[in-house]
């Protein structure tokens, strides 16, 4: 089920909300668990079965630590979720890479022809982090199955993150089970939900439509202005798509008294590639830092470790060489920054932000193009004439407005502002109602969140 669907907004959410607050405290997590399973199960029983099997596996095997050797237990505990991830997400990519014939592929027909379970990369990483944290004795394995299921399935973060650690949710979930009277921040929850909905439909999706305009024309006919405009729209589409989902997730969490972390901290205001990855998809960056980078030795072999980590970032985002190349591109940017930091850090802030934005934006087409098409795109960009082509003033005006919103307005002033610093517009209930309604009647214009693919 999508957050941007009438079924979710009009039926699922209000029903779950009412039932959650009506039942006794001890039943709240069961309500959340059941609702989340329904939320996920709508996309198919097979993928739901795999999801529940992975959860139960991680829950059960976590108790083997202390009884079995640590490494063996880790391997066993993560084996099933990791196997599902490989079989559902990477099998076709592997087969294409090794050029497996149809005869061989037919043995795996069910796996590579089943739709990728939504959010599989997110929940697999969450389950793996739980297992490793238990192995490292950072947390105790939780005996409460309903709490563990609620952690893994909690629908606001289930499909597209943020990637939660058990330690961050455990106490909040316990509080839901034990606090008789809850005091949710409904106003702020609905505000974030409605702004996220509008951001998805009227920013991310319209940028997507604008990108399509350039696709209607053969690459040779595009001008340099067209290509830069297209890159600009791609940058905004990807960012606002994920940003919108993330703030909707935070808003939904607040409706149920669960605080989810901010996953995007105005990443395009970063002054260098390293900072960018501390602001973009924060929970993925920290996951890879804690469970891969540091365990590989961190700064001891910086270049190798960074390139490995960013290859994984690429692969996490998609099963294709274009994604690997995108990850490596970012890895190289981080390495280059590392080597040139004294020079880079002396750049005026505006120049550094612009440079970082342009470099990051040049990588986004890899999200949508094959490696060959991307190279052709860049080669054409280098030689294309500078004149007006398929895009015109209305496109630049729209892109300019979004760029202004991105670079000229700080979220602390209107989105995540403190209750004491009330924003007269965005904190108004009338504004939220109008946004929510507008979003609702325009969801037919909307497409699936890009990160659902991951």
């Amino acid at each position, binding site marked *: 089920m999508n957050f941007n669907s*009438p*079924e979710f907004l*009009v*039926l699922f959410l209000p029903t779950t909300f009412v039932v959650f*607050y009506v039942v006794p405290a001890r039943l709240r997590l069961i309500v959340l668990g059941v609702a989340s399973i329904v939320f996920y199960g709508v996309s198919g029983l*097979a993928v739901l079965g795999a999801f529940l099997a992975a959860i139960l596996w991680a829950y059960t095997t976590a108790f083997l630590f202390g009884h079995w050797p640590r490494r063996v237990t880790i391997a066993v505990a993560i084996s099933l979720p990791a196997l599902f991830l490989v079989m559902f997400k990477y099998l*076709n990519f592997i087969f294409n890479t090794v050029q497996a014939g*149809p005869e061989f592929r037919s043995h795996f*027909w*069910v796996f*590579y*022809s*089943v*739709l*990728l379970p939504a959010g599989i990369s997110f929940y697999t990483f969450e389950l793996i982090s739980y297992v490793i944290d238990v192995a490292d004795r950072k947390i105790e394995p939780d005996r409460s199955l309903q709490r563990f299921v609620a952690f893994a399935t909690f629908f606001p973060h289930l499909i597209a993150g943020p990637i939660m650690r058990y330690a961050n949710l455990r106490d909040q979930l316990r509080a839901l089970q034990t606090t*008789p*009277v*809850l*005091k*949710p*921040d*409904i*106003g702020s929850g*609905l505000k974030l939900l409605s702004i996220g909905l509008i951001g998805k439909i009227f920013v991310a999706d*319209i940028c997507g*439509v604008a990108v399509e305009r350039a*696709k*209607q*024309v053969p690459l040779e006919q595009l001008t340099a202005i067209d290509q830069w405009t297209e890159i600009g729209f791609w940058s905004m589409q990807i960012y606002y798509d994920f940003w919108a989902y993330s703030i909707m997730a935070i808003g939904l969490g607040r409706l149920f008294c669960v605080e989810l972390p901010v996953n995007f901290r105005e990443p395009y205001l970063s002054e260098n590639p390293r900072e960018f990855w501390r602001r973009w998809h924060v929970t993925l960056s920290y996951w890879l830092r804690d469970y891969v980078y540091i365990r590989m030795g961190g700064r001891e072999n910086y270049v190798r470790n960074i390139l490995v980590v960013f290859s994984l970032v690429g692969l996490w985002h*998609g*099963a294709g060489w274009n994604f690997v190349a995108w990850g490596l591109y970012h890895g190289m940017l981080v390495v280059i920054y590392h080597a040139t930091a004294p020079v880079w850090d002396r750049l005026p802030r505006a120049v550094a932000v612009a440079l970082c934005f342009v470099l990051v934006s040049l990588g986004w087409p890899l999200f949508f193009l094959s490696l060959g098409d991307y190279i052709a795109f860049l080669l054409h960009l280098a030689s294309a004439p500078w004149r007006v082509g398929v895009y015109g003033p*209305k496109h630049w005006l729209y892109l300019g407005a979004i760029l202004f919103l991105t670079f000229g307005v700080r979220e602390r002033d209107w989105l995540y502002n403190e209750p004491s610093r009330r924003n007269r517009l965005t904190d108004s*209930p*009338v504004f*939220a*109602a*109008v946004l*929510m*309604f507008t979003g*609702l*009647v*325009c*969801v*037919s*214009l909307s497409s*699936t969140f890009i990160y*659902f*693919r991951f």
Partner: protein
Amino acid sequence: MLQLPRHQCRWLTVFGLGFGALVGIALWSSLGLESFRDRPFDFHTMRPNELFVVRGLTRRQEGSVKVGFAEAYAPPQIGLYGNHVFQHFGAEAFGPSGDASYFFNFWYANLALPEIYRYLRHVERLGQLPKKLILIQITSPNLDNGLFIINYGHELLPDLLLSGAEGEGPAERTLHYTYLGWQLLGNVLHETLNYNTLILGLTRSGTSNRLVDPTACDPDSVTSGRAWLRHLPGGLQSIVEGAKPRSYCQVRFWRGAFRRDGSTDARYESYALIQDEDPLRDTERGINAGDEQAIARQMQAIDALGRRNAVKVAFVVPPAYETDRRNSVVNQVFDRALALVPDLTVVDDRDMRTDPALFMDYRHPSPKYFRALVDELRRCALLD
């Protein structure tokens, strides 16, 4: 239980009242939309060059024009059921004298097999099935990456949705009705809470006489119009210009307009022919392993409907303009489905994918394709 501080209660009350009022307006506006089933339009009365303008109608209203005709007037010899992919399939493909009594194209929106089955069940109950041949267009798997074959939107008229409610025993029937109830709810929600319905409902643009004869229009007026409209997004243009125009004698109104055989005229559309336009992403497939059974079941149900009414049924799978993507997963799933129904008549044209003359764009076949298709139907002895 929950406890809200005073300011939160006030916030929530204002939000609830505002949101409720807006939803109320949307509901009211959707109730005011004209259905063309109450006062059905008779396509038999159209003159050869006339068009029925659909600008300013919701997609469901467009559907109601076709359904209203199917319910109230004499059925054709040959009826085509499908979606927009076959919208340019006109009676002229059968010869120069074709009209609505011989062939009628009942396409609308993005109907898929389960919806087409329900549409046909409804028509069957009214005794209004085509007399000789039912053509069913199946969306080619590589169009929309498998969508709209058995996955479908929310565009079937609600009562037609219920017309397929059948089951062997009480338990199966209950399950079936529960599932249908969920679908119906989604169907109503998507139609009511929709910007198109809202604006068109508020402007009440569906009631005027919608017939126009382009050959009788003043050539100077045909290309004139409000230039500022062109700067608006496409979707908004069609709504604004569709609302209560003074005259339909402008070429932009003829886009998507129904001809007297239910088809639309490809000359008024603006297409760009792009090979492989739809990427076949593994993460966005509309059909997957396991769906072959469901596809076969739907095809068998439609075929059985034709058999019990002594009407021939042929399924047509059109090509997409593409390179060799025959081994896509969605094609493989569909091949497996076809292997389950060897007795059914299926005209599978997926391999006619390379000749640009057969296409208007990646997904819409051209009139030339439809002539070739009719020749194929003749060879299969499906036509007299």
